């Protein structure tokens, strides 16, 4: 049953995603990509419990690696997107 429930969320999120992103103008496609890079760093929250939980040592280290990697995506992604968007000015 949980699989169906998760699938339900997946379908709705994909529909919302398509509707939202279709409206992003081509001028902003590069920031859109780097910004979505940052969002895909959401794996971080999954990595947190694996890294801090009571698992085998191997799983814990994998969790640590995932935390570090996902943080690069989150921090780097949002910062570089902000840097780009700050350059888009109207005169």
């Amino acid at each position, binding site marked *: 049953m949980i699989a169906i429930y998760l699938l339900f*969320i*997946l379908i709705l*999120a*994909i529909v*919302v*995603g*398509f509707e939202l992103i279709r409206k*992003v*103008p*081509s*001028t*902003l496609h*590069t*920031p859109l*990509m*780097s*910004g*979505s*890079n*940052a*969002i*895909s*760093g*959401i*794996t*971080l*929250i*999954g*990595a*947190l*419990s694996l*890294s*801090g939980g*009571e*698992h*085998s040592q*191997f*799983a814990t280290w994998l*969790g640590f*690696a*995932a*935390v*570090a*990697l996902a*943080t*690069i*995506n989150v*921090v*780097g*992604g*949002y*910062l*570089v997107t902000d*840097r780009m*968007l700050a*350059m*888009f*000015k*109207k*005169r």
Partner: protein
Amino acid sequence: MQDYNVLINFVYVVSAVLFIFGLKLLSHPATARKGNLLSALGMFVAVIVTLLDKNILSFELILAGIVVGSAIGVFTAKKIEMTAMPELVSLFNGIGGLASLAVAYATIVSAEQINVFILTVSVLALLIGAITFSGSVIAWAKLSERMIGRPIVFKGQVVFNAALIVAIVALSVLVVIQPSVATWHIVLIALALLMGVMFVLPIGGADMPVVISLLNSYSGLAACAAGFALENNLLIVAGSLVGASGIILTNIMCKAMNRSLINVLTSGFQAVITSDVKIEGEIKPLTPEDAFYVLEAAQSVLVIPGYGMAVAQAQHVMKELQELLEKNGAEMAYAIHPVAGRMPGHMNVLLAEADVSYEQLFEMDEINARIDTFDVAIVIGANDVVNPAARELPGSPIYGMPIINADLAKNVFVLKRGMAAGFAGIENPLFFKQNTRMIFGDAKETLGNLVRQFSS
């Protein structure tokens, strides 16, 4: 310890809403920065609240991971040159894939009760993560010219790839059946990594914008699959937002090149189309001095930049010339083809960096509707995206590709080093048109020369 499960999941809903509104604000350059901040806020609260999870017992490793990751993230985000954005995005895609791979792998090795569903989605996340990672590394190497750009193919590659896919499917089943056998995990990861390499190798450097868009989508799908494995709603929502974004961009890139995704992905395996069409007419060169007189009289000037402009670092001089032309009373506009840069929207970022107002950047269709009203169209470092062969020469390899109809402007100036053909290696009839003048030389020097004449 208290169970904060309800609070955590409630905050995840708030985060999802923030992500969605963040993307919504990205629909206009004026609000986009706020949107990015909103999205970052969503991520921040999600991370903070996750730390309340009762399963988290030690924080040392988490803190260490976050410190290391943040340091690398801040450093790269501050240092990176705007021309190198495609490489950075490609690397970020790869890192996202690798993170999902690690999460999925950790889930498989730490799963206490064996559940076929969780194992299946974990294997899926592992596969997508691994393919995204190795594919992105190859794309990065091709984009940064650390690797030869042309498609790399070898004899029997199709058979090899088919065998690889069969082996991956077989091993995935083995991992699901016998999750405790470590050998299967390692072989499966190795094969998936190889798959990512084999997927990008046969694709040429010119098609990398499509590949990074697609890998962008994969990095989202990997997070999404990891979300299924961890039964985490927010991972699923955020991952599918990214997945949708990547697929839309891939589609836009393919349409702009008039090719199907399958055609792009298998282009290395296809015979090269050659065209023996002879172009009539002669090349008419023009000196910057003469160009100045034409520009001085122009009421409206259209700039059509290509990646060559960024390579010549000519965008800043162009902006200077733009200001002088505007002072002289001319209306200025920039026409940007979807594949003008090396990733979707790349040219717009490069022009924004040179301080060109986003209100002067126009999409292909908008400008084509009124291109005949422009007195002068200046083509800088662009070739294939203004090649009228796409419109008038059936049989040309690019026939049918949507182009900016530069040749329909009253006068066309083409700034070009020499007569070499474009990225696609196709002759360009635009250079031979009645109303076209070629200004040979380095684009930056030519524009600088024009600026000096206007100033004196």
